[in-house]
């Protein structure tokens, strides 16, 4: 049973560029949440997708956008990259719009912005 898979695992971009990160949820899960984890900090909620719509959003600018596909996989897009966007981006999946319960996390995509 495949867990949450993310790609790419590492990438380097320069300021002003755009990046797309991808996530496949755990089998049987239909809800995907994205988190940003800066060095030495805990994960911070970016947004959540369910039924191909953004359902909730954290305190992140519009440069951060996402998408969910009919197969429940998801993309996170970040435009006009800033140095401060350097972080580990975590995807988490769950089943349905259930309460804040157990989330299954992927290993993350480490983004470095130069």
């Amino acid at each position, binding site marked *: 049973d495949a867990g949450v898979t993310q790609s790419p695992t590492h990438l380097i971009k320069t300021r002003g560029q755009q990046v797309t990160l991808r996530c496949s949820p755990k089998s049987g899960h239909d809800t995907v949440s994205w988190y940003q984890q800066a060095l030495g900090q805990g*994960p911070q909620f970016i947004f959540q997708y369910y039924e191909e719509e953004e359902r*909730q959003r954290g305190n992140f600018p519009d440069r951060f956008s996402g998408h969910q596909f009919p197969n429940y996989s998801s993309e996170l897009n970040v435009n006009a990259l800033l140095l401060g966007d350097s972080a580990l981006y975590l995807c*988490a999946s769950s089943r349905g*719009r259930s*309460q*804040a319960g157990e*989330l299954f*996390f992927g290993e993350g995509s480490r983004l470095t912005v130069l």
Partner: protein
Amino acid sequence: DQQVKQNSPSLSVQEGRISILNCDYTNSMFDYFLWYKKYPAEGPTFLISISSIKDKNEDGRFTVFLNKSAKHLSLHIVPSQPGDSAVYFCAAGDAGGTSYGKLTFGQGTILTVHP
């Protein structure tokens, strides 16, 4: 505004002893709390949770205690094992509201268990 705080960046414990990790929160709307463990180069993995209607939840060597009046929770690991060495994150959610899976995490505590 740090709504969930883990004030101890690190904790060192001898194998076989008890590890106690602490977490404080400020948002009264939080009613569901979780602990996650994270090894290097891996995503966080769920450890144990507790609902606000309880003050204790136990799972094997792991016990979580919740003090709602103090807005404080703690994770006890007894006995501690070297394999428990990891970063531990406290997280909180608002199950009764519309958060639907949105969790607020603390900064993490690095636990090192020495043989």
